């Protein structure tokens, strides 16, 4: 009985063996070559294997290259067969068949490095200048710029004739001019130089710079004049870029300071816990993202009102329990709120974690808006600049045009008179402080997109916030806006020649000197409200 079943197993095994070897025999011999190259686990050999696969006509070759690029190509540790493993499905590369139940531990991942990734992308890209997707065509055309040779001229002209997308057309045109510059025909070179005038692509600029020392004086001269026409544009773009950087840094300062402009500026409370209210807003963003991991792109829209409510309520709590007992005693307010800031920090350390938490950027906030190849504005900064202006406008409207705003201004100008007119000053105090704190929370949402979210987030912004409010003039919203933006711009124009460390110091010294000259800041309050 036993012998019989053993026999049967033997037959099955033999049959299995034959069918496997038959399957091997059918596949293209390049696969066994490639796997023996991959097996040697050196990047040089892997490169050879990539070349081999790229030059083969096997329909599975591009699939394998793509998997290798994405780190999904594995090799079996014993029989060397190649497989693509994504999550829990394993696909044999040479046949394209899904393998059932394999142990992932018996496979070794084929490592790639940056050089290989670049090679892979160009091998995959080489096949796609004729791709139906204009994005792929554009990427391959721009990739071509670095390697274009005169031999490719006819091929490029043919492609250009068929091209319909304007952006791809531009890129192909550039490649064409570069191919001409790389060639040997003088007339062609000169026309190419003429056509390239004012072009901002850095690859072109480097090529021109090398041509200025060309043996042919005519070409060297033409290259120089083209280069000059480019240079002035480069400087202008550089200035515009610095201005944008300055405005965006300024917008962050405005956002961080604008809540303080209300609590400190309008109410006169020195709130050292302002930074921690910003931090709470940032943590709210983190928790909202945790709650809706599948809707990261929209999470910020929910985080903004949530952060406003969380920080606002915390602000009202602080005002009702601590600050209202200390009105008119600035030193004690300062110490008490400093204590609160430490408590809030430690609270977050104990409850959440002492480590930073990851907040992801929604996809619409990553990347940059390319104006030309020298000037591109990053989306996250652009949105935050617009967002800070929006917050400013809303706040300005609330203070100017609503009854709450009217009461806030009345109480801050003359508390006794406002009470005599029937304003419930205690309620107004709480609401004003809540408004200022809520705005700090909203600033936290924006900051979570730029910097680390951790217990120390607030500390790094508190000094900057006070600086902006004092510089702009206490009690003046416009002052905060102008001061924040101008400090940002000054900082960024100083940075290139002074370095980041010195630029910050210089700005601080500048503010100290300025306050000596004008103690009430840029836009001092006038009249009786000034309180002197």
């Amino acid at each position, binding site marked *: 009985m036993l012998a019989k079943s053993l026999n049967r197993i033997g037959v099955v095994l033999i049959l299995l063996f034959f069918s496997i070897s038959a399957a091997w025999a059918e596949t293209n011999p390049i696969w066994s070559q490639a796997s023996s190259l991959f097996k040697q686990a050196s990047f040089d050999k892997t490169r050879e294997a990539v070349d081999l696969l790229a030059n083969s006509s096997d329909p599975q070759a591009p699939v394998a290259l793509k998997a290798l690029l994405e780190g999904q190509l594995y090799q079996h540790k014993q029989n060397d067969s190649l497989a693509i493993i994504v999550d829990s499905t394993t696909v044999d590369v040479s046949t394209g068949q899904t393998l059932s139940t394999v142990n992932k531990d018996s496979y070794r991942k084929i490592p790639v490095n*940056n050089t290989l*990734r670049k090679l892979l*992308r160009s091998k995959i890209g080489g096949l796609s200048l004729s791709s139906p997707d204009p994005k792929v065509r554009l990427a391959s055309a721009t990739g071509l710029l670095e390697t274009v040779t005169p031999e490719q001229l006819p091929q490029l002209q043919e492609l250009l004739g068929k091209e319909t997308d304007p952006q791809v057309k531009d890129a192909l045109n550039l490649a064409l001019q570069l191919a001409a510059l790389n060639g040997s025909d003088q007339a062609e070179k000169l026309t190419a130089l003429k056509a390239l005038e004012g072009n901002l692509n*850095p690859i072109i600029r*480097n090529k021109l710079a090398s041509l200025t020392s060309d043996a042919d004086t005519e070409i060297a001269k033409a290259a120089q004049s083209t280069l000059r026409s480019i240079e002035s544009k480069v400087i202008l773009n550089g200035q515009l870029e610095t201005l944008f950087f300055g405005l965006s840094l300024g917008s962050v300062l405005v956002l961080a300071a604008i809540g303080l402009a209300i609590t400190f500026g309008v109410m006169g409370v020195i709130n050292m816990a302002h930074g921690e209210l910003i931090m709470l807003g940032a943590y709210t963003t983190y928790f909202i993202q945790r709650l809706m991991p599948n809707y990261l792109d929209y999470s910020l829209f929910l985080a903004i009102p949530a952060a406003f409510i969380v920080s606002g309520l915390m602000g009202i709590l602080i005002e009702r329990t601590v600050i209202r007992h200390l009105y008119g005693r600035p030193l004690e307010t300062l110490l008490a709120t400093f204590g609160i800031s430490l408590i809030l920090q430690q609270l977050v350390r104990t409850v959440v974690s002492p480590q930073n938490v990851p907040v*992801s950027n929604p996809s619409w906030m990553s990347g940059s808006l390319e104006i030309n190849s020298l000037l591109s504005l990053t*989306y996250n900064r652009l949105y935050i600049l617009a967002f800070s202006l929006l917050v400013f406008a809303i706040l300005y409207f609330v203070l100017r045009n609503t009854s709450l705003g009217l009461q806030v201004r009345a109480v801050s100008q003359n508390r006794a008179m406002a009470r005599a007119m029937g304003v419930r000053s205690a309620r107004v105090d709480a609401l004003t402080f809540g408004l200022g704190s809520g705005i700090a929370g909203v600033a936290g949402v924006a900051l979570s997109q730029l910097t680390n979210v951790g217990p120390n987030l607030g500390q790094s912004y508190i000094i900057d916030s006070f600086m902006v409010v004092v510089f702009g003039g206490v009690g003046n919203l416009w002052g905060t806006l102008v001061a924040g933006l101008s400090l940002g711009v000054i900082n960024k124009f100083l940075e290139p020649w002074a370095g980041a460390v010195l630029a910050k110091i210089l700005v601080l010294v500048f503010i100290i000197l300025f306050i000596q000259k004008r103690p009430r800041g840029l836009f001092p309050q006038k009249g009786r409200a000034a309180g002197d």
Partner: protein
Amino acid sequence: MLLNNKLKKTLLAAGTAAALAWSSLSLAADDTIKVGVLHSLSGTMAISETTLKDTMLMLIDEQNKKGGVLGKKLEAVVVDPASNWPLFAEKARDLIEKDKVAVTFGCWTSVSRKSVLPVFEEKNSLLFYPVQYEGEESSKNVFYTGAAPNQQAIPAVDYLMKDLEVKRWVLAGTDYVYPRTTNKILEAYLKSKGVDEKDIMINYTPFGHSDWQSIVADIKKFGGEGKKTAVVSTINGDANVPFYKELGNQGITAESIPVVAFSVGEEELSGIDTKPLVGHLAAWNYFMSVDNPANKEFIAKWQEYTKNPKRVTNDPMEAHVIGFNMWIKALEKAGTTDTDKVAEAMIGLEIPNLTGGTAKMLPNHHLTKPVLIGEIQENGQFEVVSKTPEVAGDAWSDFLPDSKPLVADWTGKETDGKPCGNYNTETKKCSGQKYE
């Protein structure tokens, strides 16, 4: 005033007496070998150092299960210097004087090490320091189990130069001693390799810098001039995330301008969104992803000890593992816990490291270590792209004119018979240590 002083003296005397009584009591209570663990458990450095404290406790626990050493059990004495540099010195003094520890494992930042150095030398006690540092030091009482610059920075630059054919260099760092010294060494090294002054850009930023726009734009411009460019980053801690984010947003990828970092490891990556970092590089002597039985076993033990199957391991942890195992071996060899005898026994010891090689303690109190370059993956781990054989740690860099003639040898072979950590081969003098 007089009364006040008298009162103080009396109190002090009473305090000392109490402390003495307590320590003699604890000595009498149990005959163990005490091991000091001097890592910050609170304050800014707690994030990194708490892990090392846990590592030490695990190692001591494990050794005790094997029956201890020299017939005695080990006892950990954990103190918290709270990321406060002068407090490090005070706590170190307490460990040596009051707790009578045989050895101390501790410190992370260079400034904390500088703060405790005089204490360990005065009291003649041993310190194992597990973190990569700027070099330019060799003390009789310290064993440096982390990397010296020639075991991390220089091999990383070599890799970029040879394998990626980098021609232009951005040296970006946070403004303090480790990046400043490392960049000075790298600048001298690059120049010795024929890199032009124009092709090196050096940039320092304050701690926790978050507005990287103009610096990244400068790097982009610097890299757009037709030569392959790389960034060598000694940027510390928190500032890394906004830096990599800005690189991603301005369209700089690891393929166009790779960044190689010396302070970004598994532990740092576990708390952040790694998407913008994928493909960038880091240089260490150990990666958690290294496929090796010893490493697998260590990771399994660590995750079991911390009861967290996702807990990561990192380079300074491996340094403590090597340091601890070596110290045990030295005790067995010397047969005593006497500082001088153990220090002598340490030199020349060989211990397998966790990446399949061997760590050897050199006469200058540094280790031999392999240098691994890894690419950051989306899961927060590193894919090793280059590995060198073991490199001998050099206490005094050969690329700085001041330290070029200096050698450290605590056996006295290279220093004319007198053991010295700071021997000038030109003037034939041992100038002792400098503490700044």
